[in-house]
C-alpha cells in the first residue's frame, strides 16, 4: 500500500518531499500571538498585589496537598513568558524544517490556561480555583466528544464522511434511557446505546455506498430525522408512560489504590464504567488503526480505494462495517447524556455536541490519540466556562463557548498545524 504511484493526472505535487521542503511559520506565529495576548491581558492586566489561591485537595486523597497561594501578577507574567518562550522554540524548530513534539502544545496550553486562571482568580480571597474539580469535570464533559470524534475518525478513515455523529449520540442517549428504564438497570443502557448508534450508522452506510447519495446530505438529514423521531417519542410515548424515561445513573467505581493518588486519582480513576470503557476504546483503536492489518486496510480504503480494491480488499464492505462500528461507538458516547450522567432523556439533549466532536476529530487530525487530546481540550474549555461562571469572571461565557468552534476554524484553515483529511473521503466508490 505504500508504493508511490505517479499517475499522469497528478503532476507536480507528487515530487519527493526533500525537494519541496518549506518552512511552515503559521504554527509558531499563531502560538506567539496567543502568548503575547496572554502576557498583555493576563500578565500585565492583573492588578498587582493580589493573590490567587489554587486548591487541589479532595476528601479521598491519600496524601493531602495544601492549597497553593501565589502572587497573581508575577505568576501570570511568568506563565505567559514560558508560553512565549515555547513559541520561540517552535519558531527555531520551524527554521530548521522540524516540527515540535506533542509535548510542546500541551505544555504551552497549560501555561496559557494557568495564566488565565491566575488572572481570573486574582483578588478573590473568598473562592479558590478548584484544580481537581476543574480537571474532573473537563474529563467528564469530554467523554461524549471523545466517543463522537472516535466514531468520526473510524468512518472518515474508511472514506465515509460522518456528519451524523450528532444523530448517533442522540439516538444512543434515547435508547440508553429507554432500555435502562424498561429493565430498571442503568448498565443495560450501555448495551442499548451502541445498537441505536449502529442503526443510524447503518442507514448512513447504505445511502452512501449503495445509493451514492452525497454523504454530507445524508448526515445532515439523519441528524434531523433522529431529532424528530426522539422528540416525537419523547413527547408522546415517554410522556404518557413516565416509567419509560427514568433518571438512572451509573455509580462511580473508584479503582483501589490508584484513586487515592492526589489530583490524578480522583480525576482519572474515580469515574464510572463508561469513562473506563472510553480509555480502553481509545487505546484499542489507536493501536488497531495504525498497527494492525485491519487498520492498514481501512486506511487504504479511505486514501485510495481503487488500489485497495486491486489488491483484493472489499472497499464498500469495509466502509459499511466501519460506518456501523463508528455509529455504535458514537451511540455508546450518547449514553453519557442519560445513564452516565444520571439524567432522564430530554428533547435535543445533545445540543450540538456531535458537531463539536466533529471538530475534535479534525483538530485531532483523524487519529484516536489526537481526537482524545482535542476532545479533552474542548471539555476543558467547557469546564472552564462553568468554573469561571461560579467565581464570577469578567469573560463573557459566550466567548468561552465559542472557543472550540474558533479553534476548529483555525485548524481547518491551516493556521494551527495542517489538517489533511483522508484522500477518498466523501467520494462513493463505483466499480
Amino acid at each position: 500500500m505504500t508504493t508511490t504511484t505517479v499517475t499522469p493526472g497528478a503532476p507536480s505535487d507528487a515530487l519527493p518531499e526533500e525537494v519541496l521542503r518549506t518552512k511552515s511559520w503559521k504554527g509558531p506565529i499563531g502560538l506567539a500571538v496567543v502568548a503575547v495576548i496572554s502576557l498583555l491581558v493576563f500578565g500585565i492586566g492583573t492588578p498587582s498585589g493580589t493573590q490567587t489561591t489554587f486548591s487541589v485537595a479532595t476528601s479521598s486523597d491519600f496524601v493531602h496537598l495544601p492549597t497553593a497561594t501565589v502572587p497573581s501578577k508575577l505568576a501570570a507574567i511568568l506563565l505567559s513568558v514560558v508560553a512565549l518562550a515555547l513559541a520561540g522554540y517552535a519558531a527555531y524548530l520551524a527554521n530548521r524544517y522540524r516540527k515540535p513534539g506533542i509535548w510542546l502544545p500541551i505544555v504551552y496550553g497549560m501555561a496559557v490556561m494557568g495564566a488565565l486562571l491566575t488572572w481570573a482568580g486574582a483578588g478573590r480571597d473568598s473562592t479558590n480555583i478548584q484544580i481537581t474539580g476543574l480537571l474532573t469535570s473537563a474529563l467528564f464533559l469530554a467523554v461524549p466528544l471523545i466517543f463522537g470524534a472516535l466514531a468520526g475518525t473510524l468512518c472518515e478513515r474508511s472514506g465515509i464522511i460522518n456528519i451524523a455523529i450528532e444523530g448517533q449520540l442522540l439516538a444512543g442517549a434515547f435508547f440508553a434511557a429507554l432500555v435502562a428504564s424498561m429493565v430498571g438497570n442503568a448498565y443495560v443502557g450501555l448495551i442499548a446505546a451502541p445498537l441505536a448508534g449502529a442503526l443510524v450508522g447503518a442507514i448512513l452506510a447504505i445511502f452512501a455506498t449503495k445509493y451514492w447519495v452525497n454523504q454530507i446530505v445524508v448526515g445532515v438529514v439523519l441528524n434531523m430525522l433522529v431529532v424528530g423521531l426522539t422528540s416525537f417519542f419523547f413527547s408522546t410515548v415517554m410522556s404518557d408512560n413516565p416509567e419509560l424515561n427514568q433518571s438512572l445513573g451509573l455509580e462511580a467505581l473508584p479503582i483501589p489504590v490508584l484513586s487515592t493518588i492526589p489530583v490524578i486519582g480522583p480525576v482519572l480513576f474515580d469515574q464510572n464504567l463508561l469513562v473506563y470503557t472510553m480509555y480502553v476504546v481509545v487505546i484499542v483503536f489507536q493501536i488497531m488503526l495504525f498497527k494492525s492489518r485491519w487498520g492498514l486496510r481501512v486506511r487504504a480504503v479511505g486514501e485510495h480505494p481503487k488500489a485497495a480494491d486491486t489488491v483484493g480488499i472489499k472497499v464498500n464492505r469495509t466502509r459499511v462495517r466501519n460506518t456501523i462500528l463508528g455509529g455504535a461507538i458514537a451511540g455508546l458516547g450518547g449514553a453519557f447524556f442519560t445513564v452516565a450522567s444520571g439524567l432522564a432523556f430530554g428533547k435535543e439533549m445533545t445540543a450540538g455536541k456531535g458537531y463539536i466532536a466533529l471538530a475534535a476529530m479534525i483538530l485531532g487530525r483523524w487519529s484516536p490519540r489526537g481526537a482524545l487530546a482535542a476532545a479533552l481540550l474542548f471539555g476543558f474549555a467547557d469546564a472552564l466556562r462553568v468554573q469561571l461562571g461560579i467565581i464570577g469572571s469578567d469573560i463573557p461565557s459566550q466567548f468561552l463557548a465559542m472557543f472550540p468552534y474558533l479553534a476548529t476554524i483555525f485548524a481547518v484553515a491551516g493556521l494551527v498545524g495542517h489538517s489533511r483529511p483522508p484522500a477518498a473521503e466523501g467520494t462513493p466508490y463505483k466499480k
Partner: protein
Amino acid sequence: MSATTEAAAPQKPQTPSRAQQVLREILESSTLVVIMAIVASMLIGAILIAFADEEVRAASAYFFSRPGDTLSAIWEAVSGAYTAMFQGAIYNSNVDSFAGQIKPFTQTLTQATPLIFAGLGLGIGFRAGMFNIGAQGQIIIGATLGGWVGFAWHLPVGLHLLVAIIGCALGGAIWGFIPGILKAKTGAHEVIVTIMLNYVALNLLSYLLSLEAFQREGQDNPISPTVDTNAQYPLLLGDQFPLHWGFVLALACAGGVWWLMERSTLGFEFRAVGANPRAARTAGMNVAKGTVLVMVVAGALAGLAGSAQVLGTEKNLTLDVAGSIGFDAITVALLGRSRPLGTVMAAILFGGLKASGPTLQVQAGLPVDIVFVIQATIVLFIAAPPLVRSIFRLPAPAHEKEVAA
C-alpha cells in the same frame, strides 16, 4: 391503435406504442419520484402517528381477538392527524368566514418566505459545488444586523425598511464571506467552517443580547426591543392575514436568482466552477473569486431570510430568531433540486408542514416533531431515487445511471 400495436408487438418488441411510451416516460420521470417520495414519507409518518396513539396501543393489546378495533383506531388517529395538517396549512373548513378559511394558506406562505430566501442561497451554493451548511449562522447575523438597524435607528418611512433589509443582507453576506475566503485562500472545507460559524453566530447573538444596547427595557430575558414600524415589512393582504411583503421580495429574488444562474455571465461562471473547477480555471475564470462571490451571494440571501423573521414575522431579536430555518432550508434546496422554481415549491411545501404544527398539536394532540420526521424522510427518499423506485416497483430510466445528490 391498441389492436395494431398488439399485432405488431410480437415482431418488433423494441418499438413500443405511443401510449406505452407516454406511460413509461411518466413512470421514469423524476417528478413522479418526488411525488412518491412524499407519499412514502407520509406513510412513515402515519406509522409513527399510529404507534404513538394511545387508543391504538390500547386496542392492539387485544388485536388478535378484535383486529377491527385496532384498524379503526389507526385510521382515526392517522386521518385525524392529516386532516389537522391540511386544515392548519391549506384550508380550514371549520370556520365560516372566507378570510378564516384561507388564513391557514397565508400562514403557510408566511412560513415559506424565509425558507425561499435561504433555500435560494443554498441552491446557488450547491450548483457552484459549495456545500454551505451555514445558512443558520448567516440568518442569525443578518437578522442581528438588520434588526439592530430596525430598532436602534430611526429613519423615515420607506428608507428605514430599505436600510434594514440591506443591513440583513449585509450581515448574511459577511458571514458567508468568511467561509468563502477561507476556502479560496487556504482550502478550508466550507462544510466544517460553516457548521462552526453557526455556533459562533449563536454565541455572538447571545452575547449581544446580554448587552444594554440590545436589551429591551424592563426585560431580563434575552430579547431586543421591537423594530420600528417603519422598518417592518408592510402586510400584504391587510391586518387579518400575517402575510407580509417579504414574500413578494422572496419571489422577486427567485426570479433574480433564475436570471443570475441561467442568463448572466457570473451565473455561468458559478456553474462552471461547480461543475469542474479545473476546466473553469483553464477557461480563464477566477475560481477563487467565484468561490467567494458564491458564498457572499448565498450569505446575503440567507440574511434576507433573517429579514423575513426579524422585520416580518417576529419583529424582534431573540436567540430563537432563526429557529431551524437554516437546516430546513438545506432540505428545501435539495428537494427543489437547487432550481429557483423548485425551491419556491419546496419552500411552500415545508412552510405548510411548519404552519400545520400548532393545529396538529391542538387538534390531534401530536407534537410538532412529526413534521421534522416527514421532512427528513422526504429528502432521504428524494436523494435516492433507486430506493423509491424499488419501493413502488417503478421502472428505472435507461439513461439515469448515476444518482445525483
